[in-house]
């Protein structure tokens, strides 16, 4: 198969087209603008819809409309734009509409800067919008994984009738790596019998998140809860590197996991039995990854491009069974492998 050297943003866009994305609605923002730029050029050529909306709020509501009509649809943005889309994401979850939302995260809060960050973890995994809802969140750490997860994101969205988010960062969006576009065997996807496609003799379909009767809304919430539990049971993904005999674990995702991988190698050279847990799904969070290593783990070090957000999930997963330390760089700054290596040594020193 042909290997191409592509930027993360462009590779993601190409993968979306190959995965059958029919419509894109969005509004440009650095550091993800190559994604809509690529789609603006390619989607019309391949008979798809590309529309630059007048705002992020308009874009996410166009996603709602297209998803309600049964289309395979996506939007993308970076932190400030994703904040604007929160109301729409809550409605999409309430109405159980499948879609892909991409967040190529930049430094915040507010307008922040355009450098890479992971400070939208809470927003992505806890839901920045209102109500009891969850979105599946994928955190790729290479351009190839970014591509592979796009296919899965669209499929899981359809299977569970739920928005799926890909949480990247500025470096992942901007960097180039070789990619191969695999033609994956298509999953058996449920027919969209609920979509508003014109009645043509069938019963009425209504897409809504409004249930004025609290008895009905409670039932709806329990139904969502059942779905979320199914997702938690089935869809957790993670990778463990150098974990077989490791005693000291770094936990990191996305670009941070790549740097941590280098730090682990340095630690191994220095005689420290270090391993890496790399969550691929941030929700559902892969708690089993921690259970699997708990018999030998002496301590965990969470490394993030933030003030410390994923560390909450690490602590919930470790559940007091071992100490959990934190090292982070917020605001668009990126730690070096040496920085993380030094923190691994500190963790080892503190845990003896």
């Amino acid at each position: 198969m042909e290997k191409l050297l592509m930027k993360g943003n462009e590779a993601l866009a190409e993968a979306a087209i190959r995965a059958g994305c029919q419509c894109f609605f969005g509004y440009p923002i650095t550091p993800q603008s190559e994604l809509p730029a690529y789609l603006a050029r390619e989607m019309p050529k391949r008979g798809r819809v590309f529309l630059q909306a007048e705002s992020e709020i308009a874009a996410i509501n166009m996603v709602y409309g297209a998803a309600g009509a049964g289309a395979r649809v996506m939007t993308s943005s970076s932190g400030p734009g994703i904040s604007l889309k929160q109301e729409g994401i809550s409605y999409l979850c309430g109405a159980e509409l499948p879609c892909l939302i991409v967040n190529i995260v930049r430094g915040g809060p507010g307008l922040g800067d355009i450098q890479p960050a992971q400070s939208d973890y809470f927003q992505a995994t806890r839901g920045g919008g209102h109500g009891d809802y969850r979105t599946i969140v994928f955190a790729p750490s290479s351009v190839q994984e970014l591509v592979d997860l796009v296919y899965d994101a669209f499929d899981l969205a359809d299977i569970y009738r739920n928005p799926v988010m890909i949480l990247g960062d500025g470096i992942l969006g901007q960097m180039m790596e070789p990619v191969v576009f695999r033609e994956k065997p298509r999953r058996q996807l449920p027919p969209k019998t609920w979509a508003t496609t014109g009645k043509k003799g069938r019963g009425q379909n209504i897409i809504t998140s409004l249930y004025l009767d609290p008895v009905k809304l409670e039932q709806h919430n329990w139904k969502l809860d059942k779905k979320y539990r199914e997702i938690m049971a089935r869809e957790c993904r993670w990778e463990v590197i150098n974990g077989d005999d490791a005693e000291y674990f770094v936990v990191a995702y996305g670009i941070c996991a790549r740097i941590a991988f280098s730090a682990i190698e340095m630690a191994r050279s220095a005689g420290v039995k270090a391993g890496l847990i790399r969550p691929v799904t941030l929700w559902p969070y892969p708690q089993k990854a921690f259970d699997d290593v708990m018999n030998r783990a002496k301590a965990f070090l969470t490394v993030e491009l933030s003030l410390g957000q994923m560390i909450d999930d690490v602590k919930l997963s470790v559940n007091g069974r071992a100490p959990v330390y934190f090292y982070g760089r917020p605001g668009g700054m990126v730690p070096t492998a040496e920085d993380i290596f030094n923190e691994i040594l500190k963790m080892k020193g503190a845990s003896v």
Partner: protein
Amino acid sequence: MKLETIMAGFGGQGIMLMGEILAHSAMMENKEVSWIPSYGPEMRGGTANCMVVISDRRIASPIISHPDVLVAMNKPSMEKFSPLVKPGGLIILNISMIDDRPARGDVDILEVDAGKIADALGNSKVANMVVLGALVGKTGIVDKKTVLNSIDCFLPSHRKSMYEINEKAFIKGLELMAGVTLKGVG
């Protein structure tokens, strides 16, 4: 095998392209590669750099703290990055634009009059290909033929007439390896 290279200079000197061609060549030889641009509110005449990692194993961090090779196309780039080069590493200087020399006795320093050579070929814009030739000649990280194929790949169909001068510039850089001044250890 792993080679970490930082390429830096002014925006407009073809820094990003030089890195992309190197990364593309290595990919075509089935090596693992990554390429990261400096990005931000950049503009022509500002500073630009990219990081290229080439390895025969899965690449951990694509971000380079201490490069094996630095290509400095202007003085600010030399000043910023030369202290970071690994001992025993290589610094390639475009001396057409740099009158100073880095204060390092523990690295190889390769002086390439890339601007002058490019001018003599008839187009100052191919200075980047001269330097790329020198890098490939010195490190042998990829085959010369692969690079020439990659140069061709990167030229859009309406610019194929530019292939010849880029090829010449690259070969000039390669050939320079015989007579160029080498300083330091290694």
